[in-house]
């Protein structure tokens, strides 16, 4: 009884001091993966967002914000639990941060059906991009398949006709190879599915050498990709058979861990450190000053997500009117560090993809250098299925 009284009193006090309430920072919930081998992905996305907030003095679009971060441990159930807490207990209306598609699959539908906005800084799984698209769901990064479609386009543009493709034997791996094939158009002379937890690729190296393709495309996330590139170099294949990679295989952390073995690879990306637009120059400079470690594209996506939120908050001043806020996000009225950016019909990005060369930088370490534009205003294969 007493408790209720106090609650009621607090409620009245809150009503009367409406102006004081507005001063409280807007809470943005971030569900992300910080533990385990993939922890650096979540860490970079978070740090990218924090950087943007800090550069505006704790505000986004003039509105004071507080980023509440929690680790999902790469467990879908935990992601769901955190979302529930953010929305139910803390009344948050704006969530972001999920790194992996399987966590997104368990968490995002619950968020968007609960009248909250979810803005993805990384995962863009196909099962949320097509018929299941939602007005409350935005993706700033990319649709998963587009990553590999860019690699296929690169292989085509570079004039390769015969490709050998490899990916782990799971859905994302198969999507990667299908994405590559969709834009490549040449002949696939070898298609190998590796085991999900396989770390030794010597047997695949021998198969590649025996098949003697013009180009190799492979998609192995995180540590597996690092192992693959090291072993490719040790097998003496780097330099003999060119390799085209999609973005996740060549982030700055991977390049750093692989070392010399990465030099000479063709990479594809929607963002690279050396982009010369003003937004990116400012971002790179601020990042180097604050963190001093290699910038990954994950960080750029976190930063872009924060900037997108800032552009919407600048128009609406808050998220109390969800319809207005949603409209403002959809307008995408911000300067992305990747250059041109707009949302497609399914609220996934429409942007450009680039071809990068991996060369030895000034310090001898491998560095990605932008070479060419591959695809212009490129959306994704699922937008047409979205009825919105």
């Amino acid at each position, binding site marked *: 009884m007493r408790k209720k009284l106090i609650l009621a009193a607090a409620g009245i006090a809150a009503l009367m001091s409406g102006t004081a309430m507005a001063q409280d920072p807007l809470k943005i919930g971030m569900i992300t993966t910080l533990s385990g081998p993939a922890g650096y992905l979540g860490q970079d996305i978070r740090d990218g967002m924090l950087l943007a907030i800090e550069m505006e003095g704790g505000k986004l679009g003039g509105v004071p914000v507080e980023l509440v971060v929690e680790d999902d441990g790469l467990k879908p159930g935990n992601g769901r639990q955190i979302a529930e807490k953010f929305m139910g207990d803390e009344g948050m209306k704006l969530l972001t941060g999920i790194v992996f598609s*399987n966590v997104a699959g368990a968490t995002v539908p619950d968020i968007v059906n609960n009248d909250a906005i979810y803005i993805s800084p990384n995962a863009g799984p196909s099962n949320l991009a097509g018929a299941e698209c939602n007005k409350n769901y935005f993706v700033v990064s990319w649709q998963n398949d587009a990553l590999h479609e860019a690699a296929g386009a690169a292989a085509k543009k570079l004039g390769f006709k015969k490709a050998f493709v490899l990916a782990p034997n799971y859905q994302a791996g198969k999507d990667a190879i299908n994405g590559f094939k969709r834009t490549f158009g040449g002949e696939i002379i070898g298609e190998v599915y590796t085991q999900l937890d396989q770390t030794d690729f010597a047997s695949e190296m021998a198969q590649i050498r025996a098949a003697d393709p013009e180009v190799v495309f492979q998609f192995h996330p995180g540590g597996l990709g690092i192992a693959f590139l090291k072993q490719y170099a040790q097998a003496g294949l780097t330099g003999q058979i060119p390799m085209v990679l999609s973005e996740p295989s060549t982030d700055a952390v991977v390049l750093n861990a692989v070392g010399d073995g990465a030099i000479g690879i063709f990479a594809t990306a929607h963002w690279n450190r050396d982009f010369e637009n003003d937004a990116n120059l400012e971002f790179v400079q601020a990042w180097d000053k604050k963190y001093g470690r290699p910038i990954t594209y994950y960080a750029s996506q976190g930063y872009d997500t924060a900037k997108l939120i800032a552009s919407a908050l600048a128009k609406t001043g808050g998220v109390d009117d969800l319809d207005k806020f949603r409209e403002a996000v959809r307008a995408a009225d911000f300067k992305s560090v990747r250059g041109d950016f707009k949302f497609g019909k399914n609220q996934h990005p429409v942007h450009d993809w680039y071809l990068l060369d991996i060369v030895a930088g000034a310090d001898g370490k491998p560095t990605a250098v932008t070479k060419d534009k591959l695809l212009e205003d490129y959306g994704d294969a699922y937008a047409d299925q979205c009825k919105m």
Partner: protein
Amino acid sequence: MRNRILALLLICVLIALPTITRELGEASLLALATRILIYGMAAASLNFILGYGGMVSFGHAAFFGIGAYVVGILATHHASGEPLFGIIPGTDQMLVTLPLAVLVAGAFAAAIGALSLRTGGVQFIMITLAFAQMLFFLFVSLKAYGGEDGIIISRTNALPGLNMRDKATFYYVVLAIAVLFFFGLRRLTQSSFGTVISGIRQNERRMAALGIPAYRYKLYAFILSGMGAGLAGALMANFLRFASPDMMHWTKSGELMIMVILGGVGTLFGPFLGAGAFLILETFLAEWSENWPFALGLILLVVVLGTRGGLQALIDRVTALVRGGAK
């Protein structure tokens, strides 16, 4: 008598929980409680063979995952309208999906158990793990059902007359099932069947000498345990509205085992305690620091080194001490 009062009190608290959490403004605790009940059932199922029967299954998440996939696959076919294998129509009725999940999990448990129970000891641990991993790889490569990304279930299974979208309603459904499950399990362990299972753990040869076919009894226990895990998995798929292969990954089997050991092996209520302690620690430590796995590890280590027999034993000892002091 004392226990009965405690149990009554606990049930009252559990019934009042949705109201309590709402008043406290911590509605997400209800979701946590739902998860604890579901994992508690899975852990208690494992404990039935592990604690009572002495069969250490390191692949129990397989049955949990199968239960979840039965719900997921039926929901997929219900949404698309195409029958499974061309004959079995999909459905979103919980009265159909839950029993079916239990039966399918039981069928898998029968096959896996029949082979695994030819071994014992460490070999049994590893062979159950092997079968679970094979199923994990199978579901990872099932493109039609999302593969690694899993199945998104668009809505919770329906129960006639209830609004299952309401979180409190769903919690009460889970609570009712958990209470029935708990009392069923209690009867089972006290039945002659349960006594035989415990007897086999203590001395298989003696039971055989008494003319009891140990293998067959162990297999029955294994199947029942698999069915329990399947039930929990089906409820979890309904709760998350999602089913994915990582529900049957070996780390999930390990987690179930950790819950059992943490709570107290071979105790009736221990697995629920263990599931509660593990999930609560995980949730609140993650909120507190990003280095939470270290703290979780430290706490688990202290518990295992400091208590013999898990939390249940600790509580028993404390209550005995209090009672002794009161005398």
